[in-house]
Protein backbone atom coordinates (compact mmCIF):
# COMPACT_ATOMS: atom_id res chain seq x y z
CA UNK A 1 0.00 0.00 0.00
CA UNK A 2 2.79 2.32 0.81
CA UNK A 3 4.07 1.91 -2.73
CA UNK A 4 0.79 3.22 -4.04
CA UNK A 5 0.96 6.30 -1.85
CA UNK A 6 1.52 9.28 -4.08
CA UNK A 7 4.58 11.38 -4.03
CA UNK A 8 3.89 14.69 -2.28
CA UNK A 9 4.26 16.64 -5.48
CA UNK A 10 0.79 15.87 -6.88
CA UNK A 11 -0.76 17.09 -3.64
CA UNK A 12 1.14 20.29 -4.17
CA UNK A 13 -0.65 20.58 -7.48
CA UNK A 14 -3.97 20.46 -5.65
CA UNK A 15 -2.85 22.98 -3.08
CA UNK A 16 -1.69 25.26 -5.87
CA UNK A 17 -5.23 25.09 -7.27
CA UNK A 18 -6.45 26.14 -3.83
CA UNK A 19 -3.93 28.96 -3.80
CA UNK A 20 -5.04 30.22 -7.20
CA UNK A 21 -8.64 30.12 -6.08
CA UNK A 22 -8.06 31.82 -2.75
CA UNK A 23 -5.74 34.49 -4.08
CA UNK A 24 -7.77 35.34 -7.15
CA UNK A 25 -8.08 39.12 -7.23
CA UNK A 26 -11.43 40.56 -6.29
CA UNK A 27 -13.18 43.03 -8.61
CA UNK A 28 -11.95 46.58 -8.27
CA UNK A 29 -15.27 47.74 -6.83
CA UNK A 30 -15.08 45.17 -4.02
CA UNK A 31 -11.54 46.30 -3.23
CA UNK A 32 -12.60 49.95 -3.26
CA UNK A 33 -15.68 49.29 -1.16
CA UNK A 34 -13.65 47.41 1.40
CA UNK A 35 -11.06 50.18 1.44
CA UNK A 36 -13.68 52.85 1.97
CA UNK A 37 -15.35 50.85 4.69
CA UNK A 38 -12.03 50.33 6.43
CA UNK A 39 -11.01 53.97 6.24
CA UNK A 40 -14.42 55.08 7.50
CA UNK A 41 -14.09 52.69 10.42
CA UNK A 42 -10.48 53.71 10.97
CA UNK A 43 -11.49 57.35 11.36
CA UNK A 44 -13.72 56.26 14.22
CA UNK A 45 -10.86 54.40 15.89
CA UNK A 46 -8.25 55.97 18.09
CA UNK A 47 -5.09 55.73 16.03
CA UNK A 48 -2.47 53.99 18.12
CA UNK A 49 0.46 56.11 19.06
CA UNK A 50 3.94 54.80 19.07
CA UNK A 51 5.40 54.33 22.53
CA UNK A 52 8.43 56.49 23.17
CA UNK A 53 11.03 53.79 23.46
CA UNK A 54 14.47 53.14 22.14
CA UNK A 55 12.92 50.77 19.69
CA UNK A 56 12.04 53.73 17.52
CA UNK A 57 15.66 53.69 16.49
CA UNK A 58 14.55 51.21 13.89
CA UNK A 59 13.31 54.22 12.02
CA UNK A 60 16.44 56.20 12.72
CA UNK A 61 17.81 55.93 9.24
CA UNK A 62 14.72 57.43 7.70
CA UNK A 63 14.31 59.95 10.44
CA UNK A 64 17.88 61.15 10.08
CA UNK A 65 17.15 62.14 6.51
CA UNK A 66 14.07 64.03 7.54
CA UNK A 67 15.78 65.52 10.59
CA UNK A 68 18.38 67.15 8.37
CA UNK A 69 15.67 68.70 6.24
CA UNK A 70 13.82 69.72 9.36
CA UNK A 71 16.91 71.36 10.79
CA UNK A 72 17.43 73.31 7.58
CA UNK A 73 13.80 74.40 7.60
CA UNK A 74 14.09 75.42 11.24
CA UNK A 75 17.17 77.54 10.45
CA UNK A 76 15.30 79.31 7.68
CA UNK A 77 12.30 79.84 9.96
CA UNK A 78 14.48 81.21 12.76
CA UNK A 79 16.18 83.57 10.36
CA UNK A 80 12.75 84.76 9.25
CA UNK A 81 11.64 85.30 12.81
CA UNK A 82 14.83 87.24 13.53
CA UNK A 83 14.33 89.50 10.53
CA UNK A 84 10.68 90.12 11.37
CA UNK A 85 11.39 90.83 15.01
CA UNK A 86 14.29 93.14 14.18
CA UNK A 87 11.87 95.16 12.04
CA UNK A 88 9.48 95.52 14.91
CA UNK A 89 6.96 93.06 13.58
CA UNK A 90 6.44 91.57 17.02
CA UNK A 91 6.87 94.82 18.89
CA UNK A 92 3.20 94.98 19.86
CA UNK A 93 3.05 91.49 21.35
CA UNK A 94 3.07 91.17 25.13
CA UNK A 95 1.66 88.89 27.78
CA UNK A 96 -1.95 89.39 28.75
CA UNK A 97 -2.57 91.79 31.59
CA UNK A 98 -5.23 91.32 34.21
CA UNK A 99 -6.88 93.02 37.12
CA UNK A 100 -8.62 91.50 40.11
CA UNK A 101 -11.73 92.85 41.77
CA UNK A 102 -13.13 91.61 45.05
CA UNK A 103 -9.83 90.09 46.11
CA UNK A 104 -9.51 89.47 49.83
CA UNK A 105 -5.71 89.68 49.64
CA UNK A 106 -3.37 92.33 48.37
CA UNK A 107 -1.35 90.00 46.17
CA UNK A 108 -2.57 90.41 42.61
CA UNK A 109 -1.62 86.91 41.46
CA UNK A 110 -3.17 85.19 44.46
CA UNK A 111 -6.94 85.52 44.33
CA UNK A 112 -8.98 84.75 47.42
CA UNK A 113 -12.71 85.29 47.37
CA UNK A 114 -14.15 86.07 50.75
CA UNK A 115 -16.89 83.91 52.19
CA UNK A 116 -19.62 86.38 51.23
CA UNK A 117 -18.58 87.68 47.83
CA UNK A 118 -16.88 86.50 44.68
CA UNK A 119 -13.64 87.74 43.16
CA UNK A 120 -13.15 88.35 39.47
CA UNK A 121 -10.00 88.26 37.36
CA UNK A 122 -10.40 90.23 34.12
CA UNK A 123 -7.83 89.73 31.41
CA UNK A 124 -6.86 92.20 28.73
CA UNK A 125 -8.19 89.96 25.95
CA UNK A 126 -11.69 90.09 27.40
CA UNK A 127 -11.56 86.76 29.20
CA UNK A 128 -12.55 86.59 32.82
CA UNK A 129 -12.49 84.10 35.66
CA UNK A 130 -14.85 84.36 38.62
CA UNK A 131 -13.87 82.76 41.90
CA UNK A 132 -16.99 81.98 43.91
CA UNK A 133 -17.07 82.87 47.62
CA UNK A 134 -14.51 80.93 49.61
CA UNK A 135 -12.45 79.93 46.57
CA UNK A 136 -8.75 80.44 46.01
CA UNK A 137 -6.99 80.85 42.65
CA UNK A 138 -3.50 81.63 41.60
CA UNK A 139 -2.61 83.27 38.31
CA UNK A 140 0.68 81.52 37.78
CA UNK A 141 1.69 83.14 34.52
CA UNK A 142 0.32 84.91 31.49
CA UNK A 143 1.48 84.78 27.90
CA UNK A 144 0.55 86.43 24.61
CA UNK A 145 -2.07 83.79 24.06
CA UNK A 146 -3.48 83.01 27.46
CA UNK A 147 -2.62 82.20 31.02
CA UNK A 148 -2.01 79.40 33.43
CA UNK A 149 -4.23 79.42 36.48
CA UNK A 150 -4.13 77.21 39.49
CA UNK A 151 -7.45 76.46 41.18
CA UNK A 152 -6.25 75.78 44.69
CA UNK A 153 -9.64 75.37 46.27
CA UNK A 154 -13.28 75.96 45.44
CA UNK A 155 -15.10 76.83 42.28
CA UNK A 156 -14.15 79.04 39.37
CA UNK A 157 -16.26 79.95 36.38
CA UNK A 158 -14.18 80.85 33.36
CA UNK A 159 -15.21 82.65 30.21
CA UNK A 160 -12.27 82.46 27.83
CA UNK A 161 -12.48 84.54 24.66
CA UNK A 162 -11.84 82.49 21.60
CA UNK A 163 -9.06 83.88 19.44
CA UNK A 164 -7.09 82.61 16.47
CA UNK A 165 -4.34 81.64 18.87
CA UNK A 166 -5.17 81.08 22.46
CA UNK A 167 -3.67 78.84 25.05
CA UNK A 168 -5.16 78.64 28.48
CA UNK A 169 -4.47 76.10 31.13
CA UNK A 170 -6.38 75.59 34.37
CA UNK A 171 -4.69 73.31 36.86
CA UNK A 172 -6.38 71.61 39.79
CA UNK A 173 -4.35 69.08 41.70
CA UNK A 174 -3.21 66.46 39.19
CA UNK A 175 -5.76 67.58 36.57
CA UNK A 176 -5.05 69.99 33.71
CA UNK A 177 -7.86 71.59 31.73
CA UNK A 178 -6.74 72.81 28.31
CA UNK A 179 -8.85 75.61 26.86
CA UNK A 180 -8.93 77.53 23.61
CA UNK A 181 -12.20 79.43 23.93
CA UNK A 182 -15.10 78.45 26.07
CA UNK A 183 -17.27 78.99 29.08
CA UNK A 184 -17.10 76.45 31.85
CA UNK A 185 -17.23 75.96 35.59
CA UNK A 186 -14.55 74.16 37.49
CA UNK A 187 -14.39 73.08 41.10
CA UNK A 188 -11.60 71.49 43.07
CA UNK A 189 -11.67 70.09 46.56
CA UNK A 190 -8.07 69.55 47.70
CA UNK A 191 -9.13 67.56 50.76
CA UNK A 192 -11.33 65.06 48.97
CA UNK A 193 -9.17 65.44 45.85
CA UNK A 194 -12.25 65.74 43.66
CA UNK A 195 -12.64 67.79 40.52
CA UNK A 196 -15.84 68.81 38.80
CA UNK A 197 -15.94 70.50 35.40
CA UNK A 198 -19.20 71.68 33.83
CA UNK A 199 -19.21 72.86 30.24
CA UNK A 200 -21.47 75.68 29.05
CA UNK A 201 -19.93 76.61 25.70
CA UNK A 202 -17.12 75.39 23.48
CA UNK A 203 -14.89 72.53 24.46
CA UNK A 204 -11.98 71.67 26.69
CA UNK A 205 -9.64 68.77 27.11
CA UNK A 206 -8.73 67.42 30.50
CA UNK A 207 -5.51 65.63 31.26
CA UNK A 208 -6.38 63.20 34.00
CA UNK A 209 -4.28 60.78 36.03
CA UNK A 210 -7.31 58.46 36.19
CA UNK A 211 -8.63 56.35 33.36
CA UNK A 212 -7.77 57.40 29.78
CA UNK A 213 -5.14 60.09 29.97
CA UNK A 214 -7.19 62.76 28.17
CA UNK A 215 -10.91 63.49 28.12
CA UNK A 216 -12.64 65.77 25.63
CA UNK A 217 -15.62 67.71 26.90
CA UNK A 218 -18.12 69.69 24.89
CA UNK A 219 -20.98 71.98 25.81
CA UNK A 220 -23.37 70.15 28.08
CA UNK A 221 -20.82 67.71 29.44
CA UNK A 222 -20.00 67.40 33.08
CA UNK A 223 -16.85 65.73 34.29
CA UNK A 224 -16.32 64.51 37.81
CA UNK A 225 -13.29 62.66 39.08
CA UNK A 226 -12.12 61.53 42.46
CA UNK A 227 -8.44 60.84 42.91
CA UNK A 228 -8.98 59.05 46.20
CA UNK A 229 -11.66 56.77 44.83
CA UNK A 230 -9.99 56.47 41.47
CA UNK A 231 -13.21 57.16 39.61
CA UNK A 232 -14.17 59.32 36.67
CA UNK A 233 -17.74 60.12 35.77
CA UNK A 234 -18.93 61.96 32.70
CA UNK A 235 -22.48 63.12 32.22
CA UNK A 236 -23.37 64.44 28.84
CA UNK A 237 -25.50 65.92 26.17
CA UNK A 238 -27.96 68.31 27.64
CA UNK A 239 -30.28 69.96 25.20
CA UNK A 240 -28.80 73.13 23.68
CA UNK A 241 -31.45 75.31 25.25
CA UNK A 242 -30.19 74.55 28.72
CA UNK A 243 -26.52 74.93 27.95
CA UNK A 244 -26.32 78.59 28.84
CA UNK A 245 -28.53 78.43 31.84
CA UNK A 246 -27.04 80.80 34.36
CA UNK A 247 -23.53 79.46 34.23
CA UNK A 248 -22.05 81.63 36.92
CA UNK A 249 -24.31 81.04 39.85
CA UNK A 250 -21.92 81.44 42.74
CA UNK A 251 -22.46 78.89 45.45
CA UNK A 252 -20.11 78.53 48.36
CA UNK A 253 -17.99 75.44 48.28
CA UNK A 254 -18.58 74.40 51.84
CA UNK A 255 -20.92 71.64 50.77
CA UNK A 256 -18.28 69.99 48.70
CA UNK A 257 -16.85 69.98 45.26
CA UNK A 258 -19.09 70.93 42.43
CA UNK A 259 -21.66 72.40 44.74
CA UNK A 260 -21.95 75.43 42.48
CA UNK A 261 -23.12 73.39 39.58
CA UNK A 262 -26.86 73.46 39.55
CA UNK A 263 -27.62 72.10 36.12
CA UNK A 264 -27.95 68.43 35.45
CA UNK A 265 -28.73 66.28 32.48
CA UNK A 266 -32.31 65.20 31.92
CA UNK A 267 -32.61 61.50 32.45
CA UNK A 268 -33.73 60.76 28.93
CA UNK A 269 -30.75 62.36 27.25
CA UNK A 270 -28.03 61.81 29.76
CA UNK A 271 -25.10 59.63 29.01
CA UNK A 272 -23.28 58.76 32.15
CA UNK A 273 -20.14 56.74 32.32
CA UNK A 274 -18.45 55.80 35.53
CA UNK A 275 -14.92 54.59 35.24
CA UNK A 276 -13.71 53.03 38.44
CA UNK A 277 -10.01 52.84 38.05
CA UNK A 278 -8.53 52.66 41.48
CA UNK A 279 -4.82 53.37 41.68
CA UNK A 280 -4.32 49.98 43.36
CA UNK A 281 -5.73 48.26 40.32
CA UNK A 282 -3.57 50.34 38.04
CA UNK A 283 -0.45 49.17 39.80
CA UNK A 284 -1.57 45.54 39.55
CA UNK A 285 -2.33 45.91 35.87
CA UNK A 286 0.46 47.94 34.27
CA UNK A 287 -0.76 47.46 30.72
CA UNK A 288 -4.31 48.50 30.01
CA UNK A 289 -6.58 45.87 28.52
CA UNK A 290 -7.66 47.99 25.56
CA UNK A 291 -3.97 48.40 24.73
CA UNK A 292 -3.43 44.67 24.93
CA UNK A 293 -6.37 44.08 22.62
CA UNK A 294 -5.03 46.65 20.20
CA UNK A 295 -1.83 44.69 19.84
CA UNK A 296 -3.56 41.35 19.62
CA UNK A 297 -2.63 39.98 23.06
CA UNK A 298 -6.13 38.59 23.58
CA UNK A 299 -5.05 35.67 25.76
CA UNK A 300 -3.38 37.99 28.24
CA UNK A 301 -6.55 40.02 28.69
CA UNK A 302 -8.68 36.95 29.31
CA UNK A 303 -6.21 35.39 31.69
CA UNK A 304 -5.76 38.69 33.56
CA UNK A 305 -9.53 38.92 33.96
CA UNK A 306 -9.70 35.36 35.20
CA UNK A 307 -6.90 36.01 37.67
CA UNK A 308 -8.86 38.92 38.98
CA UNK A 309 -12.14 37.02 38.90
CA UNK A 310 -14.61 37.37 36.07
CA UNK A 311 -17.43 38.10 38.52
CA UNK A 312 -15.47 40.92 40.12
CA UNK A 313 -14.61 42.38 36.77
CA UNK A 314 -18.16 42.15 35.53
CA UNK A 315 -19.25 44.05 38.62
CA UNK A 316 -16.57 46.70 38.73
CA UNK A 317 -14.53 46.96 35.53
CA UNK A 318 -14.70 50.15 33.50
CA UNK A 319 -16.63 50.29 30.24
CA UNK A 320 -13.45 50.28 28.21
CA UNK A 321 -12.12 47.26 30.10
CA UNK A 322 -15.38 45.38 29.69
CA UNK A 323 -15.37 46.12 25.98
CA UNK A 324 -11.74 45.00 25.74
CA UNK A 325 -12.50 41.83 27.68
CA UNK A 326 -15.53 41.15 25.50
CA UNK A 327 -13.43 41.53 22.34
CA UNK A 328 -10.54 39.49 23.68
CA UNK A 329 -12.78 36.69 24.88
CA UNK A 330 -14.56 36.58 21.53
CA UNK A 331 -11.26 36.40 19.69
CA UNK A 332 -10.01 33.48 21.77
CA UNK A 333 -13.37 31.73 21.57
CA UNK A 334 -14.27 32.11 25.24
CA UNK A 335 -17.96 32.61 24.59
CA UNK A 336 -19.02 32.57 28.23
CA UNK A 337 -16.64 35.33 29.30
CA UNK A 338 -17.46 37.37 26.22
CA UNK A 339 -21.16 37.09 26.93
CA UNK A 340 -20.82 38.03 30.59
CA UNK A 341 -18.65 41.04 29.78
CA UNK A 342 -20.98 42.31 27.10
CA UNK A 343 -24.08 41.81 29.23
CA UNK A 344 -22.39 43.76 32.02
CA UNK A 345 -21.54 46.50 29.57
CA UNK A 346 -25.20 46.74 28.67
CA UNK A 347 -26.57 46.67 32.19
CA UNK A 348 -24.01 48.89 33.87
CA UNK A 349 -23.55 51.42 31.09
CA UNK A 350 -27.05 51.41 29.72
CA UNK A 351 -27.81 54.04 27.11
CA UNK A 352 -24.23 54.57 26.04
CA UNK A 353 -22.69 53.84 22.65
CA UNK A 354 -20.71 51.04 24.27
CA UNK A 355 -23.93 49.43 25.45
CA UNK A 356 -25.36 49.50 21.93
CA UNK A 357 -22.15 48.10 20.50
CA UNK A 358 -22.38 45.35 23.08
CA UNK A 359 -25.78 44.39 21.65
CA UNK A 360 -24.23 43.88 18.24
CA UNK A 361 -21.32 41.94 19.67
CA UNK A 362 -23.70 39.77 21.67
CA UNK A 363 -25.37 39.01 18.37
CA UNK A 364 -22.03 37.97 16.94
CA UNK A 365 -21.22 35.91 20.03
CA UNK A 366 -24.54 34.10 19.99
CA UNK A 367 -24.26 33.47 16.28
CA UNK A 368 -20.82 32.00 16.86
CA UNK A 369 -22.18 29.52 19.36
CA UNK A 370 -25.04 28.62 17.08
CA UNK A 371 -27.86 30.34 18.90
CA UNK A 372 -29.32 32.00 15.84
CA UNK A 373 -32.55 33.12 17.50
CA UNK A 374 -30.71 34.92 20.29
CA UNK A 375 -28.26 36.35 17.78
CA UNK A 376 -31.14 37.71 15.74
CA UNK A 377 -32.68 39.28 18.83
CA UNK A 378 -29.43 41.08 19.67
CA UNK A 379 -28.92 42.29 16.12
CA UNK A 380 -32.45 43.71 16.18
CA UNK A 381 -31.75 45.32 19.54
CA UNK A 382 -28.67 46.96 18.12
CA UNK A 383 -30.51 48.27 15.08
CA UNK A 384 -33.28 49.63 17.31
CA UNK A 385 -30.77 51.45 19.48
CA UNK A 386 -28.29 52.58 16.84
CA UNK A 387 -29.89 52.38 13.43
CA UNK A 388 -27.06 54.47 11.98
CA UNK A 389 -24.36 53.20 14.31
CA UNK A 390 -20.94 51.92 13.43
CA UNK A 391 -22.19 48.33 13.08
CA UNK A 392 -25.50 49.10 11.37
CA UNK A 393 -24.50 47.69 7.98
CA UNK A 394 -22.99 44.61 9.58
CA UNK A 395 -26.02 44.09 11.78
CA UNK A 396 -28.36 44.23 8.80
CA UNK A 397 -26.15 41.82 6.91
CA UNK A 398 -26.15 39.52 9.91
CA UNK A 399 -29.91 39.73 10.07
CA UNK A 400 -30.08 38.54 6.48
CA UNK A 401 -28.40 35.35 7.63
CA UNK A 402 -30.37 34.89 10.82
CA UNK A 403 -33.70 35.63 9.17
CA UNK A 404 -33.08 33.03 6.50
CA UNK A 405 -32.02 30.51 9.12
CA UNK A 406 -35.01 31.19 11.35
CA UNK A 407 -37.88 31.93 9.01
CA UNK A 408 -36.71 31.03 5.54
CA UNK A 409 -35.68 32.94 2.43
CA UNK A 410 -38.75 35.19 2.28
CA UNK A 411 -37.92 36.65 5.68
CA UNK A 412 -34.33 37.12 4.60
CA UNK A 413 -35.51 38.84 1.42
CA UNK A 414 -37.26 41.54 3.42
CA UNK A 415 -34.08 42.29 5.36
CA UNK A 416 -32.07 42.16 2.15
CA UNK A 417 -34.33 44.79 0.56
CA UNK A 418 -33.80 47.03 3.58
CA UNK A 419 -30.06 46.49 3.29
CA UNK A 420 -30.10 47.44 -0.39
CA UNK A 421 -32.07 50.61 0.29
CA UNK A 422 -29.60 51.72 2.90
CA UNK A 423 -26.38 50.32 1.48
CA UNK A 424 -26.85 49.85 -2.29
CA UNK A 425 -23.09 49.57 -2.74
CA UNK A 426 -22.41 47.80 0.53
CA UNK A 427 -20.11 44.85 0.91
CA UNK A 428 -23.08 42.51 1.17
CA UNK A 429 -25.09 44.12 -1.63
CA UNK A 430 -24.45 41.17 -3.93
CA UNK A 431 -25.79 38.71 -1.40
CA UNK A 432 -28.70 41.03 -0.68
CA UNK A 433 -29.59 41.26 -4.37
CA UNK A 434 -29.57 37.49 -4.70
CA UNK A 435 -31.64 37.07 -1.59
CA UNK A 436 -34.15 39.73 -2.52
CA UNK A 437 -34.50 38.33 -6.02
CA UNK A 438 -33.42 41.56 -7.67
CA UNK A 439 -30.59 39.77 -9.45
Amino acid sequence: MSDARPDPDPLDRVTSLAREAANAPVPAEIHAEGRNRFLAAALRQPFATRPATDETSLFRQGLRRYALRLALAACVALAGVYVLSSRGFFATSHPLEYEVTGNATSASSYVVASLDSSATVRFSDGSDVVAVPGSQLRVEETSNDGARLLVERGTATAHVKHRARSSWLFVAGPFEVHVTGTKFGMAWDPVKEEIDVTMYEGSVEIDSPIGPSRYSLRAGHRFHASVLEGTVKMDGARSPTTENANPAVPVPVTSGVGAGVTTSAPADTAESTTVPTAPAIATQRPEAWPDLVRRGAFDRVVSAAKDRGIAACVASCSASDLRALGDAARYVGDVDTATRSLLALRSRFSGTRNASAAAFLLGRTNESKGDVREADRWYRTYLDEASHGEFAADALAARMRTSVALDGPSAGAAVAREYLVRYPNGVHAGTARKLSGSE
Partner: protein
Amino acid sequence: MSGSPVVRKQSQVSRFPQERLGDAELVEAVTRGDSGAAGVVWDRYSALVRGVLRSNLGADPAVEDLLQEVFIVFIRGAGELRKAGALRPYLVSVAVRLVLVELRRRKIRRWVTLSPTGDVPPIPVAPRDLAGTMALGALYRLLDELPERRRVAFVLRHVQGFDVAEVALALGVSESTAKREAARARGSIVRRAERREPALWEYIRALEQARDE
Protein backbone atom coordinates in the same frame (compact mmCIF):
# COMPACT_ATOMS: atom_id res chain seq x y z
CA MET B 1 37.58 87.16 -7.56
CA SER B 2 34.75 88.16 -9.78
CA GLY B 3 31.83 86.27 -11.14
CA SER B 4 28.17 86.50 -11.78
CA PRO B 5 25.84 85.38 -9.01
CA VAL B 6 24.68 81.85 -9.32
CA VAL B 7 20.99 81.69 -10.00
CA ARG B 8 19.43 78.45 -8.94
CA LYS B 9 16.23 77.44 -10.52
CA GLN B 10 13.63 76.80 -7.88
CA SER B 11 12.76 73.16 -7.96
CA GLN B 12 9.28 71.83 -7.58
CA VAL B 13 8.78 70.16 -4.23
CA SER B 14 6.11 67.54 -4.17
CA ARG B 15 5.03 65.06 -1.56
CA PHE B 16 6.76 61.73 -1.70
CA PRO B 17 4.19 59.25 -2.95
CA GLN B 18 3.02 57.19 0.00
CA GLU B 19 2.68 54.15 -2.22
CA ARG B 20 6.47 54.07 -2.36
CA LEU B 21 6.98 54.28 1.39
CA GLY B 22 8.33 51.26 3.18
CA ASP B 23 6.21 49.41 5.71
CA ALA B 24 7.97 51.02 8.65
CA GLU B 25 7.32 54.51 7.34
CA LEU B 26 3.71 53.63 6.61
CA VAL B 27 3.22 52.32 10.13
CA GLU B 28 4.83 55.46 11.48
CA ALA B 29 2.43 57.56 9.42
CA VAL B 30 -0.55 55.52 10.58
CA THR B 31 0.43 56.07 14.21
CA ARG B 32 0.29 59.78 13.45
CA GLY B 33 -3.29 59.33 12.30
CA ASP B 34 -2.54 59.55 8.58
CA SER B 35 -5.54 57.89 6.97
CA GLY B 36 -3.84 58.08 3.56
CA ALA B 37 -1.14 55.78 4.87
CA ALA B 38 -3.81 53.47 6.27
CA GLY B 39 -5.27 53.31 2.77
CA VAL B 40 -1.90 52.37 1.32
CA VAL B 41 -1.58 49.59 3.91
CA TRP B 42 -4.97 48.34 2.75
CA ASP B 43 -3.90 48.49 -0.89
CA ARG B 44 -0.68 46.68 -0.13
CA TYR B 45 -1.90 43.91 2.14
CA SER B 46 -5.65 43.41 1.78
CA ALA B 47 -5.14 40.88 -1.03
CA LEU B 48 -2.68 38.88 1.07
CA VAL B 49 -4.93 38.90 4.12
CA ARG B 50 -8.00 38.08 2.04
CA GLY B 51 -6.05 35.18 0.55
CA VAL B 52 -5.17 33.88 4.00
CA LEU B 53 -8.79 34.15 5.08
CA ARG B 54 -10.24 32.61 1.94
CA SER B 55 -7.74 29.78 1.75
CA ASN B 56 -8.70 28.85 5.29
CA LEU B 57 -12.41 29.59 5.25
CA GLY B 58 -13.50 29.35 1.65
CA ALA B 59 -15.88 31.84 0.07
CA ASP B 60 -17.63 32.65 3.30
CA PRO B 61 -19.50 35.97 3.43
CA ALA B 62 -17.76 36.49 6.75
CA VAL B 63 -14.42 36.85 4.97
CA GLU B 64 -14.97 40.50 4.09
CA ASP B 65 -16.04 41.26 7.66
CA LEU B 66 -13.02 39.47 9.04
CA LEU B 67 -10.81 41.33 6.61
CA GLN B 68 -12.14 44.58 8.02
CA GLU B 69 -11.57 43.34 11.53
CA VAL B 70 -7.94 42.50 10.79
CA PHE B 71 -7.21 46.01 9.60
CA ILE B 72 -9.09 47.66 12.44
CA VAL B 73 -7.01 45.63 14.88
CA PHE B 74 -3.98 46.95 13.00
CA ILE B 75 -5.13 50.55 13.37
CA ARG B 76 -5.55 50.03 17.08
CA GLY B 77 -2.21 48.28 17.48
CA ALA B 78 0.00 50.09 14.97
CA GLY B 79 1.87 51.81 17.79
CA GLU B 80 3.17 48.48 18.99
CA LEU B 81 4.70 47.50 15.69
CA ARG B 82 8.30 48.26 16.42
CA LYS B 83 10.18 46.18 13.91
CA ALA B 84 10.64 47.35 10.37
CA GLY B 85 9.43 44.11 8.83
CA ALA B 86 6.66 43.43 11.31
CA LEU B 87 3.63 44.61 9.39
CA ARG B 88 3.07 41.62 7.12
CA PRO B 89 3.48 38.94 9.82
CA TYR B 90 1.39 41.03 12.19
CA LEU B 91 -1.53 41.22 9.77
CA VAL B 92 -1.22 37.53 8.97
CA SER B 93 -1.15 36.58 12.66
CA VAL B 94 -4.27 38.64 13.38
CA ALA B 95 -5.98 37.02 10.39
CA VAL B 96 -4.98 33.58 11.64
CA ARG B 97 -6.36 34.30 15.10
CA LEU B 98 -9.68 35.29 13.57
CA VAL B 99 -9.63 32.22 11.34
CA LEU B 100 -9.14 29.97 14.38
CA VAL B 101 -12.10 31.60 16.11
CA GLU B 102 -14.23 31.24 13.00
CA LEU B 103 -13.29 27.58 12.63
CA ARG B 104 -14.24 26.90 16.25
CA ARG B 105 -17.49 28.71 15.60
CA ARG B 106 -18.25 26.44 12.68
CA LYS B 107 -17.40 23.37 14.68
CA ILE B 108 -19.90 24.42 17.33
CA ARG B 109 -22.47 25.06 14.63
CA ARG B 110 -22.10 21.55 13.38
CA TRP B 111 -22.39 20.12 16.85
CA VAL B 112 -25.64 21.86 17.57
CA THR B 113 -26.83 21.48 13.96
CA LEU B 114 -28.54 24.81 14.05
CA SER B 115 -27.21 25.93 10.76
CA PRO B 116 -26.71 24.15 7.48
CA THR B 117 -23.70 26.32 6.81
CA GLY B 118 -21.43 24.71 9.33
CA ASP B 119 -19.54 23.04 6.51
CA VAL B 120 -16.72 24.61 4.63
CA PRO B 121 -18.19 26.96 2.04
CA PRO B 122 -17.28 26.42 -1.58
CA ILE B 123 -13.89 27.69 -2.60
CA PRO B 124 -13.94 31.24 -3.89
CA VAL B 125 -13.19 30.62 -7.54
CA ALA B 126 -13.54 27.18 -9.03
CA PRO B 127 -10.54 25.86 -10.92
CA ARG B 128 -10.99 25.42 -14.60
CA ASP B 129 -11.23 21.61 -14.80
CA LEU B 130 -14.01 19.59 -13.20
CA ALA B 131 -11.63 17.00 -11.73
CA GLY B 132 -9.65 19.79 -10.11
CA THR B 133 -12.83 21.30 -8.71
CA MET B 134 -13.84 17.99 -7.18
CA ALA B 135 -10.35 17.33 -5.82
CA LEU B 136 -10.30 20.73 -4.26
CA GLY B 137 -13.68 20.17 -2.63
CA ALA B 138 -12.39 16.89 -1.23
CA LEU B 139 -9.25 18.56 0.06
CA TYR B 140 -11.31 21.07 2.03
CA ARG B 141 -13.56 18.36 3.39
CA LEU B 142 -10.49 16.61 4.73
CA LEU B 143 -9.06 19.83 6.08
CA ASP B 144 -12.31 20.32 7.91
CA GLU B 145 -11.64 17.16 9.87
CA LEU B 146 -8.31 18.32 11.18
CA PRO B 147 -7.68 20.19 14.42
CA GLU B 148 -7.81 23.93 13.75
CA ARG B 149 -4.15 24.65 14.34
CA ARG B 150 -3.00 21.74 12.21
CA ARG B 151 -5.33 22.75 9.45
CA VAL B 152 -4.14 26.36 9.47
CA ALA B 153 -0.51 25.26 9.58
CA PHE B 154 -1.09 23.16 6.46
CA VAL B 155 -2.95 25.90 4.63
CA LEU B 156 -0.34 28.54 5.39
CA ARG B 157 2.55 26.24 4.52
CA HIS B 158 1.22 24.37 1.51
CA VAL B 159 -1.60 26.47 0.12
CA GLN B 160 -0.24 29.95 0.78
CA GLY B 161 3.36 28.82 0.43
CA PHE B 162 4.61 30.53 3.58
CA ASP B 163 7.94 29.42 4.94
CA VAL B 164 8.07 27.60 8.26
CA ALA B 165 9.18 30.68 10.18
CA GLU B 166 6.19 32.66 8.90
CA VAL B 167 3.80 29.86 9.79
CA ALA B 168 5.27 29.64 13.28
CA LEU B 169 4.99 33.38 13.79
CA ALA B 170 1.41 33.45 12.58
CA LEU B 171 0.37 30.62 14.87
CA GLY B 172 2.48 31.76 17.81
CA VAL B 173 4.29 28.44 18.02
CA SER B 174 7.88 27.30 17.59
CA GLU B 175 9.17 26.56 14.11
CA SER B 176 9.52 22.87 14.91
CA THR B 177 5.88 22.75 16.03
CA ALA B 178 4.74 24.56 12.91
CA LYS B 179 6.71 22.18 10.73
CA ARG B 180 5.40 19.14 12.60
CA GLU B 181 1.78 20.31 12.43
CA ALA B 182 1.95 21.00 8.70
CA ALA B 183 3.59 17.64 8.05
CA ARG B 184 1.04 15.76 10.14
CA ALA B 185 -1.76 17.51 8.31
CA ARG B 186 -0.25 16.55 5.02
CA GLY B 187 0.11 12.93 6.09
CA SER B 188 -3.48 12.82 7.34
CA ILE B 189 -4.81 14.26 4.12
CA VAL B 190 -2.98 11.77 1.95
CA ARG B 191 -4.05 8.80 4.11
CA ARG B 192 -7.65 9.88 4.33
CA ALA B 193 -7.84 10.75 0.64
CA GLU B 194 -6.90 7.22 -0.17
CA ARG B 195 -9.62 5.82 2.06
CA ARG B 196 -12.47 8.24 1.70
CA GLU B 197 -12.02 10.81 -1.03
CA PRO B 198 -11.72 9.08 -4.39
CA ALA B 199 -11.96 12.33 -6.31
CA LEU B 200 -8.86 13.68 -4.62
CA TRP B 201 -7.08 10.36 -4.62
CA GLU B 202 -7.67 9.75 -8.33
CA TYR B 203 -6.68 13.27 -9.17
CA ILE B 204 -3.41 12.87 -7.31
CA ARG B 205 -2.77 9.50 -8.91
CA ALA B 206 -3.48 10.87 -12.37
CA LEU B 207 -1.06 13.71 -11.81
CA GLU B 208 1.50 11.27 -10.54
CA GLN B 209 1.15 9.04 -13.58
CA ALA B 210 1.34 12.00 -15.92
CA ARG B 211 4.52 13.10 -14.21
CA ASP B 212 6.06 9.62 -14.44
CA GLU B 213 5.25 9.33 -18.12
